[in-house]
């Protein structure tokens, strides 16, 4: 630190001869070095994690933490999320978990998969859990590749090599408890107090109940519930309590009750079918459905819906009440959106991410546009509101 003292001394010597402006008799105060911002350990409900796939440098993905209720200083900080990684905030601890992959020579060399544990207040790493075997699934971010169970003491990580499996990881003990092969099934949807459901290529779902050691206590496979050929479910549901609401390609809403050890199919209801000049209104985008604390669903809709349009983004958000199985509002967006997320505030905010990395924020209740947060990230595929 001698250097700093050296510079400080030099600066002091100079101060003596400085010209004084009449209106400001004293110069601005010197500022301390170093100086690093810290955050609160508990994030407000208006904060959202915006994952940046960073397509121009996939190894260098990251997430921005953003206060979508703020006009000024909305950008709070960044957490690295490397190489098709997945970010998972704890709701009970001041920690963020990131499942990610590194190479010894960045783009080549030895592969290391890890779960990195970040401190919410300092945004510094607290530890990591190395995952052997180079199995972690890599694809455009889906939140349900990495989830929590067992009162958030365990993490569930989806592997794809292309053989499918799920790793059960004890976060406290920093160790892998089990790896469960799940041929033909994908992703993890936490189910019951300790377990998960996966969706399978034949349209069924498999629920796995775990024992206290992380071993499989029971498993069951449903009859086909997902018409993958004709009307597949988008992979990321909106969660209302323990109920997962999925949108389908053609605009149906499909509920799964995940409260108990075995997932229960709640069946499908239709959103309004509306033809347009270019096709019909269908869900479109990456993360196309979210829910507010009152249980209303928000679905990103594309007016040119047809086969192949499911990732084309949307220009309206349809608000749906799943209890009444009815659309209750339409929110026209200021700009086409990639993904949507709704905050858990009592007066919820609807966040629509744009392909240029900006976020448009709306009052979710009235649909009124509130603000744009410019170029928060590069490629905002996935958003996760603080809870």
């Amino acid at each position, binding site marked *: 630190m001698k250097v700093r003292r050296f510079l400080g001394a030099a600066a002091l010597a100079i101060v003596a001869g400085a010209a004084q402006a009449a209106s400001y008799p004293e110069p601005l105060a010197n500022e301390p070095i170093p100086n690093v911002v810290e955050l609160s350990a508990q994030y407000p409900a208006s904060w959202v994690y915006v994952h940046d796939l960073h397509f121009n440098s996939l190894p260098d993905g990251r997430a921005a933490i953003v206060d979508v209720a703020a006009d000024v200083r909305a950008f709070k900080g960044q957490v690295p999320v490397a190489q098709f990684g997945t970010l998972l905030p704890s709701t009970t601890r001041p920690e963020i978990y990131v499942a990610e992959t590194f190479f010894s020579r960045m783009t080549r060399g030895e592969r290391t998969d890890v779960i990195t544990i970040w401190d919410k207040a300092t945004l510094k790493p607290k530890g990591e859990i190395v995952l052997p075997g180079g199995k972690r699934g*890599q*694809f455009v971010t889906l939140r349900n590749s990495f989830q929590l169970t067992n009162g958030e003491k365990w993490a569930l990580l989806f592997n794809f090599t292309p053989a499918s499996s799920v790793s059960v990881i004890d976060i406290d003990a920093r160790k892998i408890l089990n790896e469960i092969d799940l041929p*033909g099934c994908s992703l993890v949807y936490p189910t019951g107090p300790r377990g998960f459901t996966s969706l399978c290529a034949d349209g069924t779902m498999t629920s796995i109940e775990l024992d206290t050691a992380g071993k499989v206590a029971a498993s069951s496979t449903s009859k086909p519930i997902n018409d993958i050929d004709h009307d597949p479910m988008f992979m990321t549901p909106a969660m209302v309590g323990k109920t997962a609401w999925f949108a389908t390609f053609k605009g149906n809403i499909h509920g799964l009750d995940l409260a108990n050890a075995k997932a229960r199919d709640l069946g499908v209801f239709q959103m309004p079918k509306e033809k347009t000049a270019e096709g019909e209104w269908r869900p479109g985008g990456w993360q196309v459905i979210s829910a507010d604390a009152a249980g209303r669903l928000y679905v990103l809709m594309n007016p040119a819906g047809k086969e192949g349009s499911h*990732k*084309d983004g949307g220009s309206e958000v349809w608000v749906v009440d799943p209890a009444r199985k009815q659309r209750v509002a339409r929110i026209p967006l200021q700009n086409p959106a990639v993904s949507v997320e709704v905050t858990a505030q009592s007066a919820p905010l609807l966040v629509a991410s744009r392909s240029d990395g900006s976020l448009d924020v709306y009052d979710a209740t009235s649909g009124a546009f509130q603000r744009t947060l410019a170029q928060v990230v590069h490629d905002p595929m996935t958003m996760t509101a603080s809870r």
Partner: protein
Amino acid sequence: MSDMDSFAERAVRRVARRTSRRSLLTLIGGAITGAAVIPVLPVSRAVASTHGGGKSGLPPQTTGNPQDPGDQTQCDYWRYCAIDGFLCSCCGGTASACPPGTEMSPITWIGTCLNPADGRSYIISYNDCCGKSSCGRCLCNRNESDRPMVRPQSNNDINWCLGTESGSVYNCSTAVILGTALESK
């Protein structure tokens, strides 16, 4: 490689048990549909108006073969009906070859695209080129017959570099002709 074999074999056996041959082909090739060139708001890997589906800004690269028409640097080239990523044609490769120094992924997703010149539908294999970082040119995302992650072999969101020796870093995507499909519209 045994993992990959068992993946493919398992997928086939699993599905063959309860589907007709027509459905099997659908599973392999994705839904067999003609591939009209549709201007889109491209999302996913191809995030955006600025990228996927937009004009590449490059001079035309044609095969010179009237039976294989179109510009291989543009997202609307017929073979790209289910591609997701940077076009290798813009990155030092071609529509069916990887750029120097990359490794072509041995397995990947496949689509079925209509060739507007000969009216045939072709099975196209979208092999990723791997081992160097994102090419950065000609991002393109089209999703004819793409299905979600629940059906990996029809999903273009996966980083298919997982099957390579040089690691899983993604550089660009090719569109290789594997054969013609059973039907065309």
